[in-house]
């Protein structure tokens, strides 16, 4: 018995050279990137940390429960609307793009080209898009919406492409065999396969957009980001605490709901 185990052990591939070189590589990368670290925390920094923590844990309740247009509730509603419409517009824009870049729908060179295009869209930071759209619509929630929809395209179409490439062709062939028209094939063969995946992607992206909404505030594109950043820049930590509390609660609630829906979609 023991003999057999030892023999099996001997058969185990010896990959210590590979493992050692990987460890060495990681070590070198760590050493290279450690130049970003500085441990010099000044006394002012420590004091500041104290201020931030006490401020955030004592949120400004007047702002938090203010129901007017400057209150947290309205700002959250606006943020949610931006994220919601932004996700929907982005999701609609991604449909043609992702069909054009799925390798089983169009020729490979076209697919590759469209993929590079999608990647280019994804690389431009949200802030730059925000600046471009401010020229179109002026500062405000509308700009935020457009920015968000462009930013969503990258990730949504990446997920779309995966589900399109996983399409079960056999169903289409059998629909062909019983004499369906193209429209019927799309209605009964393609849409039922893609719909749950697409919905799941959209819901996930909505979740992410809500988290990223603070970025938009930086360029004055509406939503909760701008008041949050202003409050933090002016060291009004109570206000920042109130806004953050609202945002965190909203994101947690949305996350719970969206996970529930997505689990349901995945299990059919």
């Amino acid at each position, binding site marked *: 018995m023991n003999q057999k185990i030892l023999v099996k052990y001997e058969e185990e591939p010896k990959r210590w050279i590979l493992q050692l070189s990987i460890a060495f590589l990681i070590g070198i990368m760590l050493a*290279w990137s450690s130049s970003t670290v500085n441990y010099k925390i000044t006394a002012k920094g420590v004091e500041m940390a104290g201020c931030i923590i006490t401020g955030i844990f004592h949120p400004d309740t007047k702002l938090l429960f203010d129901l007017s247009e400057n209150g947290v509730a309205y700002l959250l509603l*606006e943020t949610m609307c931006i994220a919601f419409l932004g996700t929907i517009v982005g999701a609609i824009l991604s449909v043609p793009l992702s069909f054009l870049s799925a390798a089983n729908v169009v020729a490979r060179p076209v697919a590759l080209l469209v993929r590079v295009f999608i990647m280019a869209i994804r690389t431009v930071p949200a802030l730059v898009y925000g600046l471009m759209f401010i*020229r179109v619509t002026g500062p405000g929630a*509308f700009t935020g919406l457009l920015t968000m929809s462009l930013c969503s395209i990258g990730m949504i179409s990446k997920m779309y492409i995966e589900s399109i490439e996983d399409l079960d062709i056999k169903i289409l062939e059998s629909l062909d065999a019983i004499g369906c028209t193209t429209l019927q094939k799309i209605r009964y063969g393609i849409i039922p396969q893609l719909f749950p995946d697409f919905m799941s992607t959209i819901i996930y992206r909505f979740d992410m957009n809500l988290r990223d909404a603070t970025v938009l505030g930086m360029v004055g594109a509406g939503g909760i980001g701008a008041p949050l950043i202003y409050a933090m820049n002016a060291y009004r930590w109570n206000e920042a605490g109130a806004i953050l509390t609202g945002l965190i609660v909203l994101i947690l609630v949305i996350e719970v709901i969206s996970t529930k829906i997505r689990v349901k979609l995945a299990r059919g």
Partner: protein
Amino acid sequence: MGIYNRILKPRKLQLSNKKVIEEPISKTPIILIMLFIAACISAKITGFNIHILLKRGGKFFNILTQMFPPKLSYVNNIWNPLFDTIKMSLLGSMTGSILAIPFAILASSNLVFNRFFMLVIRFLLSLVRTLPTLVTALVATYIFGLGTMAGTVAICIFTFAYVGKQLYEQIETVDMGAYEAMEAMGANKTYAFLAAILPQVLPAYLSICLFCFEGNVRYASILGYVGAGGLGLIINEKIGWREYDSVGMILVVLFITVIIIEALSHYIRLRLT
């Protein structure tokens, strides 16, 4: 669902063998109508206006056309911030994903049987995940001063929460047979974890970390906006000076870097699984 079926009665069909079956009415139209109403309300609040978009849409390309052709001579000033960005995301991702391991273990329901404790850790992970990275970066700049350290800390915190969540979900799906067998043979929990569970989750863990690193490089490029170092710093500066051709060059370099990193990590992830 019960209420739903009571309001809209399922359609009854009689098959040829006299058997009666019920076909529930599709919920898709109702969901679509609800989504449409929500979209209308959002359009009202955000001031969505298709006319403005059609009339002034061309203005969008104002800055875009100024970015091309990119100013090639600016490329020499980009390398340092670019490497800062990569370093920030590399170190932040590594430390974050290592920090996430113990928390992920404590949050997985098949290894920890104290339900309350597990839920507390899970709540902590989701709480950290809700913090916007830009906000953590801004707070970090106040504590650590302007520079790359703040960005590294922000990325580390984000990675910690993201990898932590993905990893505990991964640990929960492993085959527990080997672990239980090792425990039955008298191995302690640590050893059983190292020998039975670690090999099962390691490829997935590395792939999650790489995926996170990919995203972090892209994210790190905007952290400079709050003074946390990296490419965002010079993007911000050049936008301020309206030197859009330099911005275009920065974006081109960033694009190439992201493509290279994604291709590398995609290759490694394919090898891992």
